[in-house]
C-alpha cells in the first residue's frame, strides 16, 4: 500500500523496451548503440522520485519531487525538479504558476537554516544553538505560565487557563504535527489558539 509505484516508472520501463526492439527489428542495431552513446541521459532518469503534496492552496495537487540521492536509503538528497503527479486524480499532473515555482520555495534565499535570536532593542538577529533557543523559550513560557495561569475562577470553577500566551498554527503543517501541537498547547493550558481558517 505504501509502495510508490508510478505510472511514470512503468512507462519508462516499457517505453524503452518497445523503442529498443522496434529499432532492432529494422536492422539498426549499430545505430542504436551509437545513438545511445551520443545522447544525453534524460535529466530525471537517475533521479529519486518522491510523492508529495503542493503546500499552497487546498486543491492540494499531487507532486513528484525529483532528487539526487535517496533520503529513504540514508543518502543525502537534493531536490532539483518538481512536477505534477500524473497519477493524482485531482490535478492529473498539472501544476499552476504557484506550484510550478515550488522548487524556488525549497531553495529560497529566505530559508531559515539555523535558530536566530533577537535581543530586546537590538537591530539584528544573531545565530544561536537549538539548545540555547529551546532552553530560553521553555524558561520564558514557564515563567509566564506560573505568573498568569488561572487555576480556578472566583466562583471556584477549575479552568486551568493560561490566557497570556498566544499560538497560531500554520496550515501547511501536517495533520500529525497538528495533533501533536494540539496536545502540547492545550496541555499547557493555552486558550488563544487559532489557524488560518479565517484569514
Amino acid at each position, binding site marked *: 500500500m505504501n509502495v510508490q509505484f508510478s505510472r511514470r516508472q512503468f512507462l519508462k520501463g516499457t517505453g524503452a523496451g518497445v523503442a529498443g526492439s522496434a529499432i532492432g527489428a529494422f536492422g539498426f542495431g549499430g545505430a542504436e548503440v551509437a545513438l545511445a552513446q551520443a545522447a544525453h541521459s534524460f535529466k530525471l532518469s537517475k533521479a529519486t522520485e518522491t510523492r508529495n503534496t503542493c503546500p499552497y492552496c487546498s486543491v492540494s495537487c499531487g507532486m513528484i519531487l525529483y532528487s539526487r540521492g535517496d533520503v529513504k536509503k540514508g543518502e543525502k538528497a537534493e531536490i532539483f525538479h518538481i512536477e505534477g503527479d500524473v497519477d493524482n486524480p485531482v490535478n492529473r499532473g498539472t501544476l499552476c504558476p504557484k506550484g510550478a515555482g515550488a522548487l524556488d520555495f525549497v531553495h529560497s534565499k529566505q530559508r531559515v537554516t539555523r535558530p536566530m535570536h533577537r535581543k530586546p532593542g537590538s537591530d539584528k538577529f544573531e545565530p544561536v544553538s537549538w539548545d540555547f533557543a529551546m532552553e530560553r523559550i521553555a524558561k520564558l513560557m*514557564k515563567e509566564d505560565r506560573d505568573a498568569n495561569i488561572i487555576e480556578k475562577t472566583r466562583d471556584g470553577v477549575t479552568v486551568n487557563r493560561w490566557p497570556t500566551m498566544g499560538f497560531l498554527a500554520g496550515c501547511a503543517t501536517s495533520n500529525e504535527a497538528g495533533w*501533536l501541537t494540539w496536545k502540547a498547547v492545550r496541555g499547557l493550558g493555552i486558550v488563544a489558539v487559532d489557524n488560518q481558517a479565517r484569514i
Partner: protein
Amino acid sequence: MTNSWTDIKNADVVLIMGGNAAEAHPCGFKWVTEAKHHNKARLIVVDPRFTRSASVSDFYCPIRAGTDTAYLLGIINYLLTNDKIHREYVANYTDVSFIVKEGFAFDEQEGVYSGFNANNRTYNRDTWDYEIGPDGFVVRDTTLENPRTVYELLKKHVARYTPEMVERICGSPKDKFLKVCEMISSTANGEKSMTIMYALGWTQHSHGSQNIRTAAMIQLLLGNQGIPGGGVNALRGHSNVQGLTDIGLLSQSTPGYLGQPRDSEPTLAAHMANRNFRPLQQNSVSFWQNYKKFYVSLLKSMYGANATAENDFGYEWLPKLDKVYDTLQMFELVYQGQINGFVCQGFNPLLSVPNKGKMIAGLSKLKFLVSIDPLETDTAKFWENHGEANPVDPSKIQTEVFMLPATCFAEDEGSFTNSSRTINWRWKAADGPGEARNDIAVMSELFLRIRELYQKEGGKVPDPIIKVDWNYKDPKLPTADELMREINGKAVTDIPDPADATKTLYKAGQQIASFAQLRDDGSTSSACWIYTGAYTERGNMTARRDNSDPSGKNVFGNWGFAWPANRRILYNRASADPSGKAWSERKSYITWNGKTWSGPDVPDYGPTLAPERNAGPYIMNAEGVARFFARKLMAEGPFPEHYEPFESPVANALHPKMSTNPAARVFKADGAAFGTSKDFPYVATTYRLTEHFHWWTKTNKLNAITQPEFFVEISPELAKEKNISNGQWVKVSSNRGSVKGKAVISKRISSLMVDGKKIHHVGMPIHYGFIGETKKAIGVNSLTPYVGDANTQTPEYKAFLVNIEPLSGPAIS
C-alpha cells in the same frame, strides 16, 4: 466541500461567486472545464471584478463588493415566486413544514429579529425555535398553509428582495440578475445539478457565514444538495487548512469539531448537559447523540492511562474558555498588552491580519515572539526598519524574538487534507537545510522541556501538563505514522462484539475501523473521530494510490481517505427520492436495493435503514432534515438578512437604522477607526493573483519574477475622474493607514450604479510586504478594518472604504 474537486465534472451549471477558482485554484478549476466540455455545463460568475474565471464563463454579472447576501436572497425570492423549486425534495428533506414558535418575528423597519437589546446590541434567542408538541417532537403542517410554517415565514422574509431591490443594493443590472436566476433555476428538477464554488470572497465579511448559509438554502430549494455535481463547495485556502481545522487547532473546537470546554462546563456531565441532541422528529437519527463517545475517546488519546472514568477521563485538565479566542480577539489582547508571549508556527500575522498599524503596536508590546517557519517572515522581522514599508525604530522595541528553522513540505512526511476532505499521505524527499527541524520535533522538545521544568522545579498547576500522554517510541521525535495511528484511534481494552458477546470485535491495541465503534467508557481512544478509518488494521488508508473510477462518475474511493467514513459526497442519501429511487438516471448515486443502500460512494445513512422508516437524509441534524430556519445557531438570526459592510458608501436600503450586522465582532476602539464615504468614497476589495500564494511566494524567485510588485487596480472611469494614468504611482488611504503602488487601469474592475449613486471599486492584491524577492511594499492590510463576522469572526477584508490620489513619483524604490 460537501462534494469534491473531481465531482465538479458532474455539474450542469456552475456558479462561482465569492471566489475566483481559475486564478486562485487553477488545477481544481480544470473540473469546471471538464464539466463544460462533457456536460455542456454553463458557468456563471458573479464578482465585482471581471476575473479570469469570468473571462471563460457563459455569463458574468457584476456586483458591489459586500452585498452577496442580498443577491442570494434575491435568487431565493425568484425561485419561490416563480415556483422554480424541487418540490418533493423540499417537502421531504427540509424543515419547510415546521411551525415556528409564537413570538418569533423579524422587524422589517428596524432590521432586527425578536429578542434584540438595542442598548448593548445583543440578542436573546429564546424565540428563535420551532413549536414543540406535547410528544416532544416538532409541530408540522405538511399542507404549508399555516402562516407560521418555515415556508411561509421564509417566503415573507425574502419577498423584499425583488430584482429591483437587488439592483438597488448590489448595483447588478436587473436583466443580468434575472438571467442568472433563470440559468440557476434550470436545475430545480432532479435531472440537472448546479455546484456552487466559493472562497474567501464570501467568508471575509462581517456577515460571511450568512452568505454561505444563503447559498446552501438555494441548493436545498433546487434539490442540489447530496447529489453528483451539486453541493456548496468551499475552495479552502491552504493545503492543509482543512486538516488543521479538523484536528482542532481552532479557538473554540477540539479535534473533530467537538466543543472546547467553557467555564460554564466544569465537568463532562455539564458539558453534555449543554448539548441536547434529542431527535426532533420521531424517526430522526440525530447522529450527534454519539457525541460523548467521541469526546471520551479524544480524552483517552490526550491523557492515555491517566484518563479514567473516576476522574472524568481527565476533562478537568483541559483549559476552559471564558470567550472565543479567534485571531481578532487574540491580537486585540496583544494590542492591549494582555498577552505576553506568542508563537507563530508557519504564520505571518503582521501582514495577514487587518490594520497593520495596530499589529505593529501590539507586537511591540510582546515580551517574546517565536516564529517556527521554513522562511523568514515579515512578522519575525516586524522590529526591523524597512523604510516606508516598515518604518519602525528597533531600539524602541523590547520584544525578544526567536526565528526557528522548520522543514518545508518536501522535507517532511505526513498527511494533508484537501478541500474535498480527502486525506493524502506525503513522503519526505530530502532533509531540511542547515539545522532545520520538522514541526513535530520542535513542538515535542518545547513541550517536554517545559514539562521537565515542572517535574524538576515544580510550579503552578503542573497536573494538566504532566498527565498528557506522550507515550511515543522516541518522545522527542514521534513519527507521523505513530501520530496518524493515534489520530485514528485504537481499542484500549478488548472490545466484545455487540452482535455476539462471546466474540471479540477488537483486541486491545488494535486500530479501530469506524467511528461507529468508538465507546464512551474509556475502552477506545481516538484523537479525531472523523478521521477514524484513516489508519486501520489494514494499514494507512491515507497512503492509498489507486486512482481507478469504477463507476465512471469521477469517484476515486480508493485514493487516500475522505472523512467521514471515506465518504466523497456528503448527505448522499438525498440523491434518492423518499422511496430510495434515484431522482433521475443521470444523477443516480446512492439508492435502496430493498435490503441496503448502495452506489459508488459510502452511503451517508444507516446502511440498512429502510426508506419506509422515513428518518430523513440529514442524519446529523436533530430534525433529520435540512434547516432553512437556523433556530438559535446563527448569531444574527435564523434567516439571513442583508447588512451593509461596516464601511459602506450607502446606508442599508432596507433598514437604514440598522445598516450593519448587529451581532458582528467589533471592539470599541476599532469602531472609532471606521471611515465614512465622505472622506473615503471608494469601495475597496483585496484579492489574490494566480502567480502568488498569500505572503509566502514573495520569497520565491520564479513567482517574484512573474508578479514583482504591488499594484492598485481601478476602472478607466475612476482613472479619468481622478486624473490618474496607467502605471502612475498612487496613494490609497483608509481611515487606518495608506499604501502606495502603481495604478493598473483596467476594464476588469466594475463601476456600478447603487441606489442612484455611482460606486467605483478599487482592487488590490494581497501578496506584498518587505521580506522576500518582490519589491518592498507597505502591505494592503494597513488599510483593512478590524471587524469580524458574527459567527466565525473572520475579518472583513473584502469590502471597505478608501480614497485614492495620484502621486508624482515612485513611492518605494
